[in-house]
């Protein structure tokens, strides 16, 4: 998923860099209001978790694309859309600067796909599903699973859109093939991502419901019983 240098041409990369910069500036402004003493360590941990999880790369050899877990839905669920997008963006920036994973000149494209599109899609779905589904652990699990699955596919299609706008090689009729391959591959990845997101979020919500941003933001009436359990769930 990380676009490396030279896949998309310069002008399109520059436009998306400007877009990502503006969107991140907005997230910084909104995120500052969210970031309190509880969210600050959580944001760091979510970013670390996403960083670790993105190391698992699944190459899809038939088409030469690769995919991995994105973590946008997990971030949206636990720290909210603004700080969540910033967490994923930080992961991408550090990966590009230090590991060369995803080109530095393509950062705008990668941030748009994974940090902005992925997190936005996930949070919109979370906000919708949490209102529709019953307030139970299984309702929460379904919300996490579906939003993670959809966010991964949306982020993958963001790449297809960018390739259509400014791919350095004209694929002709094969662009639909690329879109199909990306969608199918990321559907499979999305299932894995959905399972990990759902188990993590449900466990956290069971033990420390006060830590789940989506539950706090969308259910303001419930006073959270913030009882820290030593040693975690087990």
């Amino acid at each position, binding site marked *: 998923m990380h676009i490396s240098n030279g896949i998309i041409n310069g002008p399109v990369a520059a436009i998306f860099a400007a877009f990502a910069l503006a969107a991140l500036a907005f997230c910084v402004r909104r995120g500052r209001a969210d970031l309190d003493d509880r969210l600050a360590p959580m944001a760091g941990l979510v970013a670390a978790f996403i960083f670790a999880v993105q190391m698992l790369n699944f190459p899809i050899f038939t088409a*030469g694309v690769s995919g991995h877990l994105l973590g946008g839905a997990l971030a949206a669920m636990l720290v909210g859309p603004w700080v969540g997008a910033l967490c994923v963006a930080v*992961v991408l920036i550090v990966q590009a600067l230090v*590991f060369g994973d995803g080109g530095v000149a393509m950062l705008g494209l990668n941030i748009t796909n994974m940090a902005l599109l992925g997190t936005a899609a996930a949070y919109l779905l979370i906000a919708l599903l949490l209102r529709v589904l019953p307030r139970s652990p299984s309702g929460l699990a379904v919300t996490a699973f579906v939003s993670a699955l959809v966010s991964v596919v949306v982020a993958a299609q963001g790449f297809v859109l960018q390739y259509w706008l400014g791919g350095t090689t004209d694929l*002709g009729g094969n662009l639909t093939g690329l879109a199909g391959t990306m969608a199918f591959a990321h559907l499979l990845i999305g299932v894995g991502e959905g399972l990990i997101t759902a188990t993590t979020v449900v*466990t956290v919500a069971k*033990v420390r419901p006060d830590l789940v941003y989506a539950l706090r933001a969308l259910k303001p009436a419930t006073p959270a019983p913030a009882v820290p359990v030593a*040693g975690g*769930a087990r």
Partner: protein
Amino acid sequence: MGAGHPHVLYRESGSPVHRLPPEVKIAAMVLFTVAVVATPREAYWAFGGYALLVAVVAALARVGPRWLLSRALIELPFVLFAFALPFLGAGERVEVAGLALSVDGLHGAFNILAKGTLGVLASLLLAATTTTRDLLLGLDRLRCPQILTQIATFMLRYLEVLVGEARRMRVARVSRGDDPRFLWQLRGFAAGVGALFLRAFERGERVYLAMLSRGYTGRMPTAWQGAGAATAGQWVAAATVPAIAATIAAVALVLQ
């Protein structure tokens, strides 16, 4: 955990590149990459020039070619994409070893290979010569919003917390007779992920509260003390690399 510990890619040395302040290295690396990407793909000689530039910096930083090339394997997935392009590309075809390959696709493959590899080598050089702490300090001095550097600071520290907690939980599981080797034993692993997250959070929260009670306000002391920031001379020294790269890119664009 944390503070001065270098990451896996850091190569301890006292070379001139290591001694440069982090902010100039980050700026030089980003500008170099932008120049490489802006180069038209038919200008083969330009990419040779960039490779030479990378080799000179690597030699100055005392980073060996074997170390660099083995770490550059991270871009392998996109190399595979590059190899698919000559078959997928549209337009004019050319016969190579009995295969009808797209000319545009071949150019595209070279484009991705050359620019991708140069970008990866540039970031590896930055990683090899800059500790994590310095990297964050450099971002802070480049006026990166504090909320981003704060998340990045915690991310890099909690990575260690996460790995340590995962190791402890694995030892605990194995010593109680669990032997998760097969697919149907994934349930234990899945349940473990949530528990790992919570345990790491609670440990991380303690670390954060300890930092707060020692006067942490969102910026590390090295950042606001402002000692060791880059001098004009160091900016000029580091600017030579992107300046040469920009010249090459400009010449390539004019000759096109």
